[in-house]
């Protein structure tokens, strides 16, 4: 406890004495964690948008007019058991015609110009989000085209699969950029801690000579790194919140229009704690690495 109190006091004194170098270090931590938090906010909102679109995506399996009922029943059962499918609904030729008339009342006459009912019966599939994102739905659509009794398959989710792939790529690049920035910030924190060690070299020499425990010798440096990390992350979160509110005002309506009832969301509590935790950890590690030479 005494060691923590000592480390706390020394770290605060050291940060006060640090002046511009401390501000620079907090600034780089802020930029790095703003980027990391920004990528988290953007990617989580894009993810929700795509999931929302995916939920609305359907696969329609059009059946041949001469298909036997047993084949339809067997295919429907098979699809219900498929891991990519959540619901299967059979739409008969009559139901299809009725839907058409209900959806396009102005075209009702057009339907009457052809002999008989031109609409095929179909199986309408709702799909799980994950298989769509992984492209499994594309494979299912290709597989169904060749099945006996199937006239055609219409699936409008291929582009979503591509968007998911793009999102994965963007996320990877984002995490890569954030990791580089965080690494740079860690080096800046290490440099500031090293500077403060230099400023405290007289004290450190005395501490070593009088037999001070390592907690007293290294503690202030580690705590200094932790405080720099935490300060940088807090600033980053504040700026991120301001940026988020600005974006909410400017593009919030557009997002809601695209995503239905969904709204733009800030970082979850877990993500916020993650950003803070990573920053504190990086800062503490930088401080620990620098002070490792002190014995």
């Amino acid at each position, binding site marked *: 406890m005494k060691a923590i109190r000592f480390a706390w006091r020394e770290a605060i004194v050291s940060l006060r004495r640090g002046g511009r170098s401390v501000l620079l270090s907090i600034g780089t931590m802020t930029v790095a964690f703003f980027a990391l938090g920004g990528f988290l906010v953007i990617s989580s909102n894009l993810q929700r948008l795509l999931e929302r679109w995916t939920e609305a995506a359907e696969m329609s399996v059009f059946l041949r007019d001469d298909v036997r009922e047993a084949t339809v029943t067997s295919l429907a059962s098979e699809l219900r058991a498929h891991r990519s499918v959540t619901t299967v609904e059979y739409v008969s030729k009559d139901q299809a015609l009725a839907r058409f008339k209900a959806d396009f009342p102005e075209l009702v006459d057009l339907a009457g110009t052809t002999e008989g009912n031109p609409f095929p019966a179909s199986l309408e599939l709702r799909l799980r989000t994950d298989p769509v994102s992984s492209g499994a739905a594309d494979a299912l659509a290709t597989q169904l085209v060749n099945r006996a009794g199937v006239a055609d398959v219409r699936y409008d989710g291929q582009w979503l699969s591509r968007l998911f792939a793009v999102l994965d790529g963007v996320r990877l690049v984002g995490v890569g950029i954030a990791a580089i920035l965080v690494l740079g910030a860690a080096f800046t924190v290490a440099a500031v801690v090293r500077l403060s060690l230099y400023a405290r070299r007289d004290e450190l020499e*005395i501490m070593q000579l009088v037999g001070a425990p*390592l907690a007293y010798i290294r503690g202030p440096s580690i705590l200094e790194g932790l405080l720099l990390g935490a300060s940088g992350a807090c600033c980053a979160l504040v700026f991120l919140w301001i940026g988020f509110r600005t974006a909410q005002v400017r593009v919030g309506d557009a997002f809601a229009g695209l995503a239905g009832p969904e709204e733009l969301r800030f970082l979850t509590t877990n993500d916020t704690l993650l950003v803070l935790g990573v920053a504190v950890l990086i800062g503490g590690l930088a401080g620990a690495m620098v002070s490792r030479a002190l014995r």
Partner: protein
Amino acid sequence: MIETQNLTKAYAPGRYALRDLSISVAKGDFVFLTGPSGAGKSTLLRLLLLEERPSEGTAIVGGRNLAGLSRREIQAYRRTVGFVFQDFKLIPSKTVFENVSFAMRVIGVPIDHQRRRTYQVLKWVGLQHRQHAYPSELSGGEQQRVAIARALANEPQVILADEPTGNLDPDLSLDIMSLFRDINASGTTVLIATHDRELIRWTGRRTLHLEHGRLVAPEHVEERGSLA
């Protein structure tokens, strides 16, 4: 109190700072290490402070063999040794009081005891009235007194001093030597490295003469005399 056996320190093959040094300093002794610059006086003190490790040989201080000490044991050992340097090594940003109490604060001594002991040692070196002054406001002699007070703070069994009067004029040097004699009179073992033969003669204590890292003269006691 201090025993060395064939203590050797080489910084490069064939370049010895200390060579086969075997000395013995009893508990309560006051001993001078003397010799020209480069004789190995400071090296011996650094080895005894465990700032460096010997290349060969053993050093035993207060019953501890310094060769096999772990990090924690080194810390514990250093708490039993006071040190005084030529350049005082005071912390410029701390007051006299803070400089002395710092030595106790960083080893976790309770604050009440820190205060009491700091007043005590400052009074003992005659600087209680300068406790709020910063090192830059003190004379060289006063700064060295603060350094001595700090060395005494943790009630060490032995005091190691490396040219403690090297930056002081003769009168101040005598004052400092008187302090060391008083410290020794209270039972603390004192080992001082100096090349000031006049001071040694005046103090009149046992002397170990080093040259080229070796003990060259037999141990002898200088006659106490007066400075010319």
